[in-house]
């Protein structure tokens, strides 16, 4: 695959092998939550496990990330995956999405850190914004980004959305003159 061969090192090239091979726990969010919902301890344990899994995905691309950027992302993930920010019925982080997010950061190499969120399906959300403009990515499993952008007002307003493989996202942002959102 282009992404793996052209951008990422061979050892983290895209693979179809199951995520379970990298993680000592199930990635079946629904099953995990049906268990986790039973008591607070289990929810916190599952949150910790998902955080550890996301950290592992970031570690896999560490060579492409500035240490400060990685540290700030890790802080945000810790906040996002804390019981303090957890509501009953929430879907746990999908680790296949965390992998897509980590690989997207390796490809895009932003120097501005995004705000992070979680979709209803448990996919990682990332938002970059500045005055009057924002870009929001939902990182779907398989290195796909569901993106939406907004900039300008009135006659110069530009809003768009779509889905694209990671390697096309930078071009989409350039097409909307929004590459500065990620790189300051």
């Amino acid at each position, binding site marked *: 695959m282009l992404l793996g061969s052209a951008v990422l090192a061979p050892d983290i090239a895209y693979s179809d092998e199951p995520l379970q091979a990298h993680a000592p726990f199930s990635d079946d969010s629904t099953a995990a939550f049906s268990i986790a919902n039973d008591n607070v301890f289990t929810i916190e344990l599952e949150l910790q496990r998902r955080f550890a899994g996301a950290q592992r995905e970031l570690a896999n691309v560490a060579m492409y990330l500035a240490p400060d950027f990685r540290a*700030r992302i890790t*802080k*945000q993930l810790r*906040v*996002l995956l*804390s019981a*303090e*920010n*957890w*509501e*009953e*019925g*929430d879907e746990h982080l999908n680790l296949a999405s965390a992998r897509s997010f980590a690989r997207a950061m390796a490809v895009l190499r932003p120097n501005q*850190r995004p*705000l*992070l*969120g*979680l*979709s*209803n*399906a448990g996919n990682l*959300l990332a*938002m970059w*914004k500045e005055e009057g403009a*924002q870009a*929001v990515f*939902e990182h779907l499993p398989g290195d796909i980004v*569901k993106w*939406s952008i*907004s900039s300008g007002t009135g006659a110069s307003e530009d*809003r*768009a*959305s*779509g889905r694209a493989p990671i390697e096309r996202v930078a071009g989409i942002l350039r097409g909307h003159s929004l590459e500065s959102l990620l790189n300051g």
Partner: protein
Amino acid sequence: MAKGDAVPEEHHVTRWIKPRFLGKNDDGTVDVDEFGCPQTIFPSAFELRDDEDALSITWLEHFGATLADQLPLAAEAVRSATASGDLKPKSAFAVGNVGQIRTAAQDHGFKVRIIEDPEDNNTGHCEVRRYPRDADEFYQAMALDVFRRRYLYGDIVKPGWGPALAH
């Protein structure tokens, strides 16, 4: 209030926003403006879950005359209607106008209906029916243009709460 009646265009509704949909700073605090109101909502906050067929909202005018009266009561109704009976202080309530929801939907090619759907614990509960799936630009409009006023639940429940004048 009667189930199935349309909510008046000039009225307002609130949607509970989970913490996972609010932008946060590195230290875990919610990204707020100078008035302490959340600045950033992910558009996904306005997506339906797989098990939903309408967007759940609560009618504010049902609870009183001013936002300072309405929102704490609406938030309490939403809290009491949840299975856990608990909302996180870092969750928020976003406020929008009924007519603007309908207009935003029309602008994106959808014709939604905003109707009363009272529940035992939340008599102001309403639904946006015919709500679209996979409509990212519409969700973006809901987050950026319609539900622009947002208040942290942890603030709303403080005695004597009222919205900042600028809001």
